[in-house]
C-alpha cells in the first residue's frame, strides 16, 4: 500500500466475524465500530486517549479506539464489549459490577470492563492499589471508583478461591 489513499478497503475480524468495508483513512476505530458496524457499546468520550471509554481489544490487547484509525486495524482481530459480553467472558465481572453498584450512568463501564478483564488475565490476584493503578486510564465521573475496585477485587478473590 505504497500509494496515497483517502479511502481504504479494509478486512478485519470483529467479535469473531469477518468484516470488509471501505473507510475514509481519517475514520477512527471507535467511530468505525459504532457508526459502520452499529456496535455502540464502545463509547466515545474525550477523543484524545485520556478517558478510556473507547477501550477495545486489538489482537488480544486493550487499546484506545479513538487513538487508532480503522485502516490500522486492517487484518486485525478486534473484540468489543458486545463480543466479550456475548461470549460470557466477562460474566463474573458484570455480575460483580451489578452487585456492588459499580456503575451509575454506565458511560465508562464498557471501557472499565475491558481494562479489568485485561488486568485479571495478566495478574489474576492484584492488590486494591494495583487495581487503582491499572484503571488510572479509565475515567468514571459517577462512582468515585470505590465500588469499581470492590467489584474487580471480588472477582479476583473468588477466582483465586476456586483455583485453590
Amino acid at each position, binding site marked *: *500500500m*505504497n*500509494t*496515497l*489513499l*483517502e479511502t*481504504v478497503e479494509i478486512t478485519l475480524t470483529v467479535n469473531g466475524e469477518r468484516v470488509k468495508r471501505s473507510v*475514509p*483513512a*481519517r475514520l*477512527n476505530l471507535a*467511530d468505525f465500530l459504532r457508526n459502520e458496524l452499529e456496535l455502540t457499546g464502545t463509547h466515545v468520550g474525550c*477523543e*484524545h*486517549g485520556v478517558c*478510556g471509554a473507547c*477501550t477495545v481489544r486489538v489482537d488480544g*490487547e*486493550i*487499546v*484506545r479506539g*479513538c*487513538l*487508532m*484509525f480503522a*485502516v*490500522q486495524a486492517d487484518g486485525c482481530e478486534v473484540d468489543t464489549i458486545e463480543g466479550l459480553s456475548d461470549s460470557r467472558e466477562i460474566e463474573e465481572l458484570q455480575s460483580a459490577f451489578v452487585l456492588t453498584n459499580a456503575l451509575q450512568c454506565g458511560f465508562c463501564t464498557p471501557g472499565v470492563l475491558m*481494562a479489568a478483564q*485485561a*488486568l485479571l488475565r495478566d495478574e489474576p490476584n492484584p492488590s486494591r492499589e494495583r487495581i*487503582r*493503578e*491499572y484503571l*488510572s*486510564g479509565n475515567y468514571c465521573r459517577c462512582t468515585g471508583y470505590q465500588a469499581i475496585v470492590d467489584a474487580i477485587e471480588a472477582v479476583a478473590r473468588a477466582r483465586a478461591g476456586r483455583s485453590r
Partner: protein
Amino acid sequence: MKAPRFAYARPASVAEALALLDKHKDDARVLAGGQSLVPMLNFRVAAPKVLVDISRIAGLAGIKVTKTHVRIGALTRHVEIERSADIAKHLPLVAAAMPHVAHPAIRNRGTFGGSCALADPAAELPACALALGATFVVAGKKGERRIAAADFFKGLYATALKASELLVAAEFPLPKPGYASAFGELARRHGDYAMVGLAVHGSTQGGQFSDLRVAFFGVGDRPLLAAHFARALEGRTATAKTIEGALPKLDADLAPRADLYSSAATKLHLAKVLAGRVLKQLIS
C-alpha cells in the same frame, strides 16, 4: 474532535517510507503507534496532508543485545520494553521508567521510536536515552547516520531528525561495572504526564559518586542534564548528606516555566525534592 482529512500510505519497507517522506517533506508525518500523533490530529494541532504509516515495516521492531549495546528498534512497543527480560537485566533504568509511561492501553500501541521522535518534553524515554548516553540511528536517502541523544533533542517537540529522515532504532551502551541507575517521577495521577521526572545513571563504586548523568524531564523544553548538580557530587562520598548539600546547585541547572498546574517556583521545588529521593534511591 476528529482528525482532519489526510491521504494515507502504508509502505512495506524503509526505502519506500523514505521515498514518500522525501517526496512530501513537511506535508507528511510518520505514523507509528499513533498514541501522541492521533491526539494531535484530533485536536487539530497537527494537520499533515499525508500520513506515512510505518507500523507494518518488517525489521523495525524488537530488542537486541550485543556485546557492546542494547538496540531497541523504533517500532518496539512500550509493552514489549516493559515486559522484556533483556531490558530488565541490562537497562534497569528503562525498565523502571516504563510503568510511568501513560496507561496499559496506551503502552500496548505506543512505540519507542514514536516517543523519542516526537520529543515531548515530559516524556520518560528521551530522558532515559540522555542519561544512558544512547545513540539514535536515523535512516535517510543517503544511508544511515548516528546521533547522540545529547544532540538529538533540540527543543519543544523538536529533534535533529530531518523531514525526509526516519528514526529506525536507538543503541544503548551496556552499563559499565559499578554503575547504577534510578528513576522517579511526580505526576498528579498515575500515568499522567510528569510534573517533574528524573532519570539518573552513574557510578557509585567504592561509595563515591562518579560520572553521574542526571536527566530531568518535564521542567524544560527538552530533557535536561543537570551538569552543575552532577559536578557538585563528582568524587564525593555517596551519602544522603552529600546529596542534600548539592541540591541548591539545581538552581543553576533548571529554570522551569510555570504550567497549567504549578508555578515555576513549585516546579523547581519539586525537582529538588525528587532529586533528593532519586539520588538516595541510587545509593540504597
